[in-house]
């Protein structure tokens, strides 16, 4: 294929191409804002007073700061979550290719494409689940075992 000279790097392309992105951005902001406002509007608002802020008669004055350190378990689970979560990005190219119906004509017919796509995804999921099974068996997810 042709090597692309540096000049073409600066080739212009219209903001219109990015419209979906901006839409997504707006949507995200909107959603966040709505939730905050909603809670603000719907939530019962009370007047702050010393009596409200202090502990009740039966209670005890707080001695330590509220910021207690999380159990390391949180990190472990979080990390595992991230990994399995991120693996899913590979569904996208798969789905796009499958959905686009093989424009490049790599497979002789749709039948072959479907078979291949199915097998591929099964292998992928199989490996993923094997990993998950291993994690479970290693008791990495259950909380009690320290």
């Amino acid at each position, binding site marked *: 294929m042709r090597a692309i000279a540096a000049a073409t790097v*600066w080739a212009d392309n219209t903001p219109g191409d990015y419209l979906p992105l901006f839409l997504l951005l707006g949507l995200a902001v909107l959603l966040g804002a709505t939730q905050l406002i909603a809670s603000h509007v719907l939530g019962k608002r009370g007047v702050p007073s010393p009596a409200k802020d202090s502990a009740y008669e039966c209670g005890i004055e707080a001695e330590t700061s509220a910021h207690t350190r999380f159990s390391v378990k949180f990190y472990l689970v979080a990390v595992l979550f991230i990994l399995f979560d991120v693996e899913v990005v590979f569904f996208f190219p798969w789905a796009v290719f499958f959905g686009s119906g093989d424009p490049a004509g790599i497979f002789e017919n749709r039948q072959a494409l479907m078979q291949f796509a199915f097998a591929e995804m099964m292998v992928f999921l199989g490996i993923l689940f094997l990993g998950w099974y291993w994690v479970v068996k290693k008791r990495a997810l259950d909380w009690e075992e320290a």
Partner: protein
Amino acid sequence: MTVGHVVVLAGTLFTIGMLGVLSRRNILIVLLSLELMLNSAALAFCAFGDMAGNLDGQIMVFFVIVVAAAEVAIGLAIVIALFRLRVTVDTDRVDLLKQ
């Protein structure tokens, strides 16, 4: 808005990340900076992919994301292990192996 701008942005982010890795002491921050570097590279891929007009760049982004996740996950795990042994996340105190 052109590919060039995006590439420049990616380069800037990359540099910021690198400075973070080199200058910050808190290992968690260092890991964040690494993540930033990898993702700026991913951004560059998107830009160049748009320029080249094929999907290779976008595909590469997925790989980068996954690898970045894996590296940071391992990084975190090791930090936790280290934290278990020695209650610090300060790189300056990770110096057992200085000769």
